[in-house]
């Protein structure tokens, strides 16, 4: 419809933005016209950021987190416990765990979870790399920190079957009550698990 009215570069950006998740044709058009009116600086900074995103980042060849340098800063950090490995689904999970300051070992990022319905199997994830890393490594404990979703738990169970080395401790995060939550409003499953994982005091 509007194709013959709008200059091609404008239409092209609308189309590209419209392909992003959560952005429909209307938002795409609004963002495009915003950038058109904004100063050159802002549009160029965005363009540069997009270029850098692809050109200056890569996956760490050890842990598969996103990084500028390979290996990443975490993998290069000698101050970290080399016997502890935390397996997560996504790079953002690393960020979350780092923020907690509760863990000082190494990571392994799977880049997803097993979900046949979505066509994701072990071969689509960094699982072979994990197994090789554990085989050749010096880990004494592996924390399976996948999400407490059906997919995350299936992945965790699968890893449990694959990582069977004598002397290797496999653990997973405790499932507990949310801090600041209300016992009365906690669902039975969460409460049940919290009860199972109760601790002496």
């Amino acid at each position, binding site marked *: 419809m509007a194709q013959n009215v709008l200059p091609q570069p404008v239409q092209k950006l609308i189309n590209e933005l419209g392909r992003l998740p959560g952005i429909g044709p*209307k938002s795409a058009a609004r963002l495009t016209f915003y950038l058109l009116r904004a100063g050159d600086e802002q549009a160029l900074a965005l363009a540069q950021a997009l270029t850098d995103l692809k050109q200056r980042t890569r996956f760490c060849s050890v842990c598969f987190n996103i990084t500028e340098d390979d290996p990443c800063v975490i993998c290069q950090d000698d101050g970290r416990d080399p016997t502890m490995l935390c397996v997560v689904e996504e790079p953002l999970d690393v960020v979350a765990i780092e923020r907690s300051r509760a863990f000082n070992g190494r990571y392994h990022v799977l880049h997803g979870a097993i979900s046949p319905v979505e*066509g994701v*199997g*072990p071969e689509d994830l960094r699982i072979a790399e994990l197994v090789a890393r554990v085989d050749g490594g010096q880990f004494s404990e592996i924390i399976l920190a996948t999400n407490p979703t059906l997919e995350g738990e299936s992945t965790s169970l699968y890893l449990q*079957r694959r990582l069977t080395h004598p002397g290797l401790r496999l653990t997973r995060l405790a499932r507990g009550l949310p801090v600041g939550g209300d016992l009365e409003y906690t669902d039975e499953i969460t409460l049940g698990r919290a009860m199972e994982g109760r601790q002496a005091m």
Partner: protein
Amino acid sequence: MHITHLSLTNFRNYGRLELELPLGPTLLHGNNAQGKTNLLEAIFYLATTRSPQADQDQQLINWEAAQSEEPIVVGRIQAQLETQTGLRHVEMRLILEQSQSVQRGRRSFRREVLVDRRKVRLMDLLGNLRVVLFLPEDIQLITGAPSQRRRYLDMTLCQVDPVYCRHLSEYNKLLEQRNALLRQIADGTGSLEVLPVFTERLAALGSQIFIRRAVFLAAMSREAQRIHYEELTDKNETIRLNYLPRLEDSGTGQGRLLSELVHVGHWLQEQHDTANAVEKRYREAMTAVRQTDLARGSTSVGPHRDDWYIQLNGRNLGSYGSRGQQRTALLALKMAEINWMTKTTGETPILLLDEVVAELDEQRRALLLNYVKGASQALLTATDPAMFTTDFLRQASSYTVANGRVQIDKIV
């Protein structure tokens, strides 16, 4: 428990309804196609998150509202409840929304649930409001497909046992995953190594479902048998409920499978809470049908293929019973459901009776109305109030339903 106030917005033929509901029995009368059944359906939907007939949820929204040009249309059922544990407000929203990712002109549908005006998960609505519904179509529980009987199990159990409901929902998702994997393995894209993960998890969850269904059906069988024998047939006829758990898939003829499953059902009912034995047997059954599953691309054993049936004097009521015998057994089943819910939760469920009184002879009618009087709240629909005794009419509140509006005649 009872509802003190019901409010409907754009639900079926109700544009807007604000309705006070009294304790005790209330008669909803009016001509056909005025909204009597729709009102009961709204309450049932709020109790179970499902429509009694397997309709699409979207069709519950008032048609005219749904066809309007508004970017967002909301159908709403709200109820103020008084229960043993205090006052509670529950709300279900049916939302049609113009979404950007969906093609122009098409709208996405979603549901929202609020308990005490806090948004919660759909499942968290269950257990707040408990009802027993009587519909003329209930006869399909006896004559219809296994899926209808599973639906009955699920909707009844879910109102009382939230853990069952969560297990069921997780089970269904895992089942979908396992079936997708089986198909992928068949076409060479799936990994056989992953299969045991889903098999194990299904076995763990499925055992819980098997056990809970077995316990439920055993209790229901005892109670329905008692009611049927003592109250409905002058100690002449005996029914029992037989559970047919799909813990096995012999694949050798219906007759043989049936009797085998009856045995498995009895075995299950003897296991009580020992999930281990059930899980072990279930796992063995899964192993036994692994090749079949791979060939079919679907999971052949598990509670998703369960069934149950009513036996009358030793025979299958669905195949051998007369229409009259089927109706009598059904009444016993529903009355047993009321007693089971009351016993399990400590309070009477709300009774919703749609046109059922018309089908009963005088003696049965009197008996059913005793249950109605025993409940803290009951809603009965009828086109013709004359079928009730004057005695009952004196004790019941009365509302007239006409074209999506409700008028209060009298409150007792």
